């Protein structure tokens, strides 16, 4: 069953279309990857699911219920028990005056979960994220960047929500600690059935964790597919993204990546090496191209024939 359903969601900041007609669903216990250009709307989309942005249009449903338009203390608590977020900027999401122990116990207390066991659970979580227990009395500013990021992960998962929006949750971790944390996330997914929207720019990490991945460009989803997405990208933007992955050989690097998105037609057309006059006209819709793949490119058939 679908846990999260997003239908035709649009979010604007003035005349910036941060999120534009996005539809997505995440099943219970599923990990959905979300990748895309810097500024394409990934964090905004994630924040909207947590009720932190007000949509201009569209619907968000979690566990069958539409997200409340306005939050009261009670609906907020109910929502927090369902959805949590690991913020891209771990530091600003923390209370600088709370010790690690306090900041891990706080979400449990707020939700009245694990009463009486908060502290021992918090200490367990320090072990799980690889921080020594002696750190329990430290403050966030006494942590390294990666230690802080791990604290943010623990805070989001400790209350066992149904869904966690992870916004670049491992970007500050060296590969060995990253491996530990990714294994932990996988284990949590197996043991507690938590679903995740996993926003990251590291394609290898996304491929490892996510069954399906959506690719965003300029507020829209341009491609959606399973793990084979990275081996056989089909939208021209996804192809450029995979080609620019470090280690993939730098010659393939896109030289036109400075060109701004187009206002009409396909937003990617100025950078696209397959663009023709036709791309100026309609806005390509995300459509099913078979093999569990959705692509938003009107010229896909022609491109792939040649």
């Amino acid at each position, binding site marked *: 069953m679908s846990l999260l359903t997003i239908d035709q969601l649009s979010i604007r*900041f003035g005349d910036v279309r941060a999120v534009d007609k996005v539809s997505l669903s995440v099943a219970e216990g599923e990990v959905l990857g979300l*990748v*895309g*250009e*810097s*500024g394409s709307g990934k*964090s905004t989309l994630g924040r909207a699911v947590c009720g932190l942005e007000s949509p201009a249009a569209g619907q968000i449903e979690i566990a069958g219920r539409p997200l409340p338009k306005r939050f009261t203390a009670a609906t907020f608590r109910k929502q927090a028990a369902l959805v949590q977020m690991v913020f*891209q*900027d771990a*530091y*600003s999401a923390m209370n600088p005056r709370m010790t690690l122990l306090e900041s891990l116990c706080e979400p449990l207390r707020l939700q009245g979960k694990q009463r009486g066991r908060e502290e021992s659970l918090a200490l367990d979580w320090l072990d799980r994220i*690889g921080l*020594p227990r*002696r750190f329990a009395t430290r403050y966030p500013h*006494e*942590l*390294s*960047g*990666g*230690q802080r990021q*791990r604290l943010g992960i623990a805070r989001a998962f400790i209350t066992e929500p149904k869904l966690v929006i992870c*916004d*670049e949750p491992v*970007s*500050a*971790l*060296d*590969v*060995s*600690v*990253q*491996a*530990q944390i*990714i*294994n932990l996330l996988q284990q949590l997914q197996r043991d507690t059935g938590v679903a995740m929207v996993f926003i990251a*720019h*590291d*394609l*290898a*990490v996304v*491929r*490892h964790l996510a069954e399906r991945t959506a690719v965003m460009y300029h507020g829209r989803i341009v491609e959606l597919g399973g*793990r084979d997405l*990275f081996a056989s990208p089909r939208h021209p933007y996804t192809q*450029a*993204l*995979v080609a*620019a*992955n*470090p*280690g*993939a050989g*730098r010659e393939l*690097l*896109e030289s036109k*990546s*400075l*060109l*701004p*998105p187009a206002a009409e037609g396909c937003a990617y057309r100025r950078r696209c090496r397959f663009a023709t006059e036709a791309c100026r006209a309609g806005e390509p819709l995300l459509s099913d191209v078979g093999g569990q793949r959705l692509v938003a490119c009107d010229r896909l058939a022609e491109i792939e024939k040649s």
Partner: protein
Amino acid sequence: MSLLSVRDLHIHIGDNHLVRGVDLAVERGECLALVGESGSGKSLTALSLMQLLPSHARLEHGEWLFDGQDMRSLDEKAWRKVRARRIAMVFQNPMTALNPTMTIGQQIAEVICLHTSMSRREARQRAIDLLERLGIVNAPRRAKQYPFELSGGMLQRAVIAMAVACGPSMLIADEPTTALDVTVQAEVLALLQELCRDEGLGLLLITHDLGVVEAMAKHLAVMYAGRIVESGECARVLSQPAHPYTRALQAAMPSLGEARESLQGIAGTPPDLSRQIPGCAFAPRCPQAMNICVRELPQTRLIETGQCTECWLWEKPE
């Protein structure tokens, strides 16, 4: 002579001996990458090179030369002239460098006006040019926005623009591309490479992304628990890692190609640095540890493959 050379750097905070004898040398026009475990002391090392450690931190140096000058004797007034103009830094957390109440264009221009003879107007134009070169589209408009209006990756690039704005001779960049997608990252790295090549910038690049290291760095230093455990030419260290920690790091990389059940982390946790560590700090987690490893610190050795490492496996038996 190196642009920057530091010998035997120690940093203590409270009872913790967090950086325990680090040697680094950064050459003009070259990139030195510093990698290592989360919490190993990379950011503290970087901050110390800008004299920006928290005031209760204690700092010791064997030697600290920048551009031929002994930096240990500088007072705060002299330091204010050095920062931004001669040594600039990109902080790991972009928000520490930004003022939330000013637009990013203003902030970059202000740094330029403060340290160069450019006029306001020229400075504003330079700010926009830099943002553009860092792959920010609609830069003139973006320059007029406040930090909270920008995405994570745009903020990161704004901070990079601010750091390179006054043409420093050295740049310390602490995880400068973590919030960037790979196409934008390529853009940013290209600019840094250009500055190294054309303007002789010395770059100390802290990153955990070994792909970025490979693309950028001539030399590589690997840090574990406050010490450099391996260093040398980047290509050699990555192709034939000598220290068991470096090897474990490589084994932990996920790849775009093959599928794996689970990734290979390193079991155990880093040591408690409030206690004296007589031997190799990696010993409790090292699959090849011997008795002597716990008791005595191995010497740094130049090994056949050309890199330096600090590990008993490479000590010749007497």
